[in-house]
C-alpha cells in the first residue's frame, strides 16, 4: 500500500504524467464543485431558516466562513508543497506552491470583503479591529509578500526556493501572529460580539455551510489543477512532450 503510494507520488512528480492526469481530473473537480455549491447555495439561501437576531443577513456566512477557512488551508497547503519542493527538489511541487498563492490571496480577499459587508448591518461599520478580521488582513499581507518575492526574482529555480523558505517561515509565524492579535484585541477592547460558530446553530443552517466547505475545496482543486497545468506548460515550454500535447 505504502509502496504503491510512493510510486504514484513519484510518477506524479513527472510533469508530462502530471499534466495528462490533471487534464483528466479538472472537469471532475469542476463539475462536482459546481453541483455541490449549487445544492448548498439553495440549502443555505432558501431552505435554512432566517436567524432570529440577524434575519437574512446571516446568510453571507455561506460564502464568508468557507472562504476564511480556505484562506488558511491554502496557505498551509502552499507551505507543504514548498517544503516538499525544497527538500526533495521536486519542481512540480514548486509549481503547485506558486499556483496556490494567487488563489489563496483571492479567498483571503473574499473573506475580508464578505466579512465587512456582513459587518456593516450587524456591527454598524465596514471594519472593526476584530482579532479575526485583523489576522485575516495580515494573512493577505503574507500572501502579497510571497507573490512579490516570486516576481522580484527573474530566475525561476531561485524564485522557487527563496519563496519556499518564505512560505515555511510564514507558516511557522501564522499561529503566533494569530494568537498575538487575539491577545492584543481582547486586552484593548474586550471580546467583540461574534455569533459565528455558536453552538446554537441548527442542523438546517449547518449542513449547507459544511457542504459549502466541501464545494469550495473541490473548486480550489479545479482552479489549482488548471493553474498548475498552465505553470507546467510555461516552465517546460522547451521540452519535447509539450509538442505532442500542443498538437493533440
Amino acid at each position, binding site marked *: 500500500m505504502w509502496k504503491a503510494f510512493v510510486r504514484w507520488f513519484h510518477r506524479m512528480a513527472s510533469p508530462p504524467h502530471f499534466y495528462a492526469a490533471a487534464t483528466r481530473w479538472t472537469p471532475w473537480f469542476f463539475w462536482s464543485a459546481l453541483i455541490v455549491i449549487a445544492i448548498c447555495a439553495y440549502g443555505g439561501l432558501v431552505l435554512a431558516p432566517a436567524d432570529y437576531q440577524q434575519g437574512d443577513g446571516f446568510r453571507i456566512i455561506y460564502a464568508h466562513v468557507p472562504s476564511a477557512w480556505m484562506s488558511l488551508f491554502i496557505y498551509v497547503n502552499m507551505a507543504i508543497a514548498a517544503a516538499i519542493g525544497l527538500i526533495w527538489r521536486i519542481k512540480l511541487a514548486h509549481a503547485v506552491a506558486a499556483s496556490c498563492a494567487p488563489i489563496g490571496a483571492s479567498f483571503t480577499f473574499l473573506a475580508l470583503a464578505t466579512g465587512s459587508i456582513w459587518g456593516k448591518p450587524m456591527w454598524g461599520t465596514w471594519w472593526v479591529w476584530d482579532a479575526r478580521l485583523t489576522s485575516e488582513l*495580515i494573512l493577505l499581507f*503574507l500572501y502579497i*509578500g510571497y507573490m512579490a518575492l516570486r516576481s*522580484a526574482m527573474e530566475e525561476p529555480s531561485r524564485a522557487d526556493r*527563496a519563496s519556499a*523558505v518564505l512560505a515555511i517561515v510564514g507558516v511557522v509565524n501564522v499561529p503566533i501572529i494569530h494568537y498575538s*492579535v487575539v491577545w492584543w484585541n481582547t*486586552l484593548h477592547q474586550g471580546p467583540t460580539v461574534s455569533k459565528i460558530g455558536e453552538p446554537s446553530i441548527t442542523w438546517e443552517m449547518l449542513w449547507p455551510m459544511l457542504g459549502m466547505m466541501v464545494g469550495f475545496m473541490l473548486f480550489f482543486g479545479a482552479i489549482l489543477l488548471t493553474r498548475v497545468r498552465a505553470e507546467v506548460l510555461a516552465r517546460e515550454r522547451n521540452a519535447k512532450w509539450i509538442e505532442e500535447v500542443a498538437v493533440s
Partner: protein
Amino acid sequence: MENVGIFTAAARLVERDLKVIFRHVSEAFNPLVFFVVVATLFPLATSPDAALLRDMAPGVVWVAALLSSTLALDSLFKADMDDGTMEQLALSPQPLAWLLLAKIVTHWVVSGLPLVLIAPLVARGFFLPTEAILPMMAALALGTPTLSLIGAVGAALTAGVRRGGALLSLLVLPLSLPTMIFGARATDLAGLGEDPSGPLYLLAALLFLTLSLAPLAAAAAIRISLD
C-alpha cells in the same frame, strides 16, 4: 590554512564587521537618527496634547523602532553579497548559520542597542511616566534582537534582488507584528502602573524561538541567493 574553532571564527567576524561599520561611522548612526525623527513626526502630525501623547507613547516608540530596524536591514548582507565576502563565508568550514548569527548580533549592537539607550529620551518627550521607562527598555532590549533576527531572514531572501528595499519591508513587517504587539503592550501596562511581566516573558520566548530558528532559515536563504 589555519584551523579555527567556531568561537574564534565568530569573534574575528564580529571584529571585522565592527571595523567595516566604524569606517563609515556616520552611516551607522542613521537608524538611530531615523528613530528619533519618526518619533518627532507623531506630535507634529497629531497634537502636542500631553494626555494624548502619553497614550500614544508605547505605540510610537515601537512603530519607530520597527521601522528603524527594517531600514537598517538593507545594509546587513548587501555589501558582503556584492563583494564576494558572503561566498567565502558560505565556503568556510564553520556553519553558515553560526557565522550569520555573529553578523546579526554585530548588526544589533550597532543598530538596535542604541535605540534601547535613546528610547527613554523619546519616551520622556511623550510624557511616559518614569516608572514605565525601565520596563520599556527591557521590552526593547528583548524585542529589537528579535526584529533583527526576523529581519535577517528577509534580508537574506532579498540579498540577490535588485532594489529590494520595499520588498524587504513587505516581507518583514507582517512577520514582526507579534514582537511589536507584545513590546508595546508591556510598555503600555507599565505606563498604567500594572505588572508588565506577562508580555515581557512572551517577548523573551519569541527571542529564543527566533534565536534558534532564524539563523538556519537565513543561512538557507543566503545559499539560495548565492547560486
